[in-house]
């Protein structure tokens, strides 16, 4: 347990001491998402250009225009719903993950892009946190060196997740939850049953994610040559040190919960407005903080693996 917290503290220090790396990661992830934003932005501008001038002097978005826009929206445009605003966005994304909500097919493209981008970032970030201050060329070389195998690990994890969602999740949140909630005397009881099922399923997907994480660390830090051996090594590490691994995972999870709580209150107290610059700035600040937490977790995983692996 102490080792986990020590690794987390070390990870926090590493990220705090590497603002340029954080900025670079933000730039890379933003660049990955930007093309989709350009496509949607162009379509929004086109739609707004034909908006009747009744709202021309308005500073806010006309809800009626938005509803009509949504009625005719297809593909990427159909994802432009009220949940993209402020705290609703992470809430919707987390809820979709927990409930296994089927996302629009068009979102597969950014998801795959994100998977590939993070496969590259993993290589660079492990090199940074394992080797101390290294130059951009070394980081880029590390990213390239591991990219193919890290993509393979990501693909394996994704396939396992899909299988889990199609089987265990469907079972838990289908007949099992229906049976449990039918016996619940109140909405509160039913919700607690659902939370219990979230925890059970969450453990399964967390294990898969952790195995994928430590497989990458094993390859980059210990030089494990093949994906198969790396996964085997990672499984051994996760099961042998499950207390420390879980403690680190939960501790980082608490950081994320704290971030979400801060975001929620920042929004409700700050009074962000629809489409407002302040809301957009707060949202980007949240993204930066989330990236920092993720980098902290990667750094802490590297530290933990080196310490007890």
């Amino acid at each position, binding site marked *: 347990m102490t080792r986990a917290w020590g690794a987390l503290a070390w990870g926090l220090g590493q990220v705090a001491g590497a603002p340029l790396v954080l900025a670079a990661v933000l730039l890379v992830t933003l660049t990955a*998402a930007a093309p989709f934003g350009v496509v949607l932005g162009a379509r*929004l501008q086109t739609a707004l250009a034909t908006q*009747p001038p009744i709202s021309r002097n308005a500073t806010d978005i006309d*809800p009626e225009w938005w509803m009509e826009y949504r009625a005719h929206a297809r593909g990427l445009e159909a994802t432009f719903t009220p*949940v993209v*605003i402020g705290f609703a966005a992470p809430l919707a994304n987390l809820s979709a993950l927990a409930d296994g909500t089927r996302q629009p097919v068009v979102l597969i493209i950014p998801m795959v892009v994100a998977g590939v981008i993070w496969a590259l970032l993993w290589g660079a970030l492990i090199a940074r946190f394992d080797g101390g201050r290294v130059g951009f060329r070394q980081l880029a070389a590390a990213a390239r060196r591991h990219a193919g195998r890290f993509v393979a690990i990501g693909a394996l994890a994704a396939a396992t997740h899909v299988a889990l969602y199609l089987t265990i999740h469907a079972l838990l949140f289908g007949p099992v939850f229906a049976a449990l909630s039918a016996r619940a005397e*109140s909405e509160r009881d039913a919700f607690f049953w659902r939370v219990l099922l979230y925890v059970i399923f969450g453990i399964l997907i967390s294990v898969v994610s952790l195995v*994928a994480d430590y497989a990458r660390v094993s390859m980059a830090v210990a030089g494990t040559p093949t994906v198969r051996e790396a996964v085997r090594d990672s499984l051994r590490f996760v099961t042998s040190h499950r207390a420390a691994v879980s403690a680190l995972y939960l501790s980082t999870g608490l950081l994320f919960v704290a971030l979400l709580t801060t975001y929620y209150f920042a929004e409700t107290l700050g009074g962000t407005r629809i489409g407002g610059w302040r*809301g*957009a700035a707060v949202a980007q600040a949240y993204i930066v903080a989330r990236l920092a937490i993720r980098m902290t977790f990667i750094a802490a995983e590297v530290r933990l693996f080196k310490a007890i692996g």
Partner: protein
Amino acid sequence: MFLGAGVSDADARLSDTATRALTMLTGWFGPFPDTTLAIVDLPWAVDLAGAAYPGVVTTRTRWLAPARELTAERTLIAGLARRYWQVPATPAEFNWFAEGVSLYSSTRAIHELLEGRNYASQRAFGGFVLHVIRALNWSPNSWQPQPRVRHFAEVDEPSRAPWRLASAEADSQAQRAALALHTLERYVGWPALQPALASLRERAGERGVVPALLAEVLSEQRGIELGWFFEDVLHGKRAIDYGIEVFTSEPGGADGRFRTVVKVRRYGDGVFAGTSRPRDGSLSSSKSLALLVRFADGAQIDDFWDGRDDRAEFSYSSRSRAISATIDPGLILLVDVDRANNSRTLEWAPRPEGFRMTLNWLAWLQDLMLSYSALV
């Protein structure tokens, strides 16, 4: 008035909402049809919220709902408004119209009663967690006083239910009737439509809630001849869709003036003529559809079209170039199935709100990409 066990904050809110809604609806449509009323706050698992029967209206408060979340209030208002139009004398073949009036009345009552605090809400984690999106207010505000949004989930869903007079599915006749009534309100104004609806309700005891009765009442009260409206817009199953087909503005002669041509088109087979009388020769005789043309120097032309022909052409000569043309700029014709083609512009300029909306969406996408990539 009977609410759930105990007097919780939610009960007090519902009681207050019911009192204010009944006062408002009585002012609009006359005495409430029931002498006693039980408001039932349903248990969470009973999916009957929104049902209205003689003397009983149902709603449902949720456990994890913040005080700003007004789903229960919207459901309650919709149920109370619905009771006005559940008239036994209504012939079965006009149940769609009664349902349409109910949908329209409910939506309007929600806007009126919850103005300024009618926020969008989001259901997460199996629907158990409700989050209020305070940045998005569905109801009128200072710069757009008309009720704008015409569909609330609490009014429209479930679209098929035992207490409904007819289906309220998206393309149903009832929804078309509701949209037609929203259009009528914007066309003749609420001060004209409200007393007409009150008279409709008063006389419906004998003839039922039928379109012909509303047409008669409007004709009597306002001297408005609306046979065309009831025939083409309310009854009709034909699609109404007007738009701008061609819009050009080019220098047209040696004097340097611009010649602007606007070709408007009736894409649908439905007609919004504004009168049942034959055309008197002018394209703009009935003034049913407004056409707004804006020019680069700030000038604008307000023209009209009676919407009868498949196409019509308007041309203007001006000192400066035209920059936009819009048919129905006042958003009167809410039954128009595609408003995206109602406007054309020649001077495209990015709108700041478009950038801001895109940035919000981009943050959502970044979060989505982070969330899913964290799993693999």
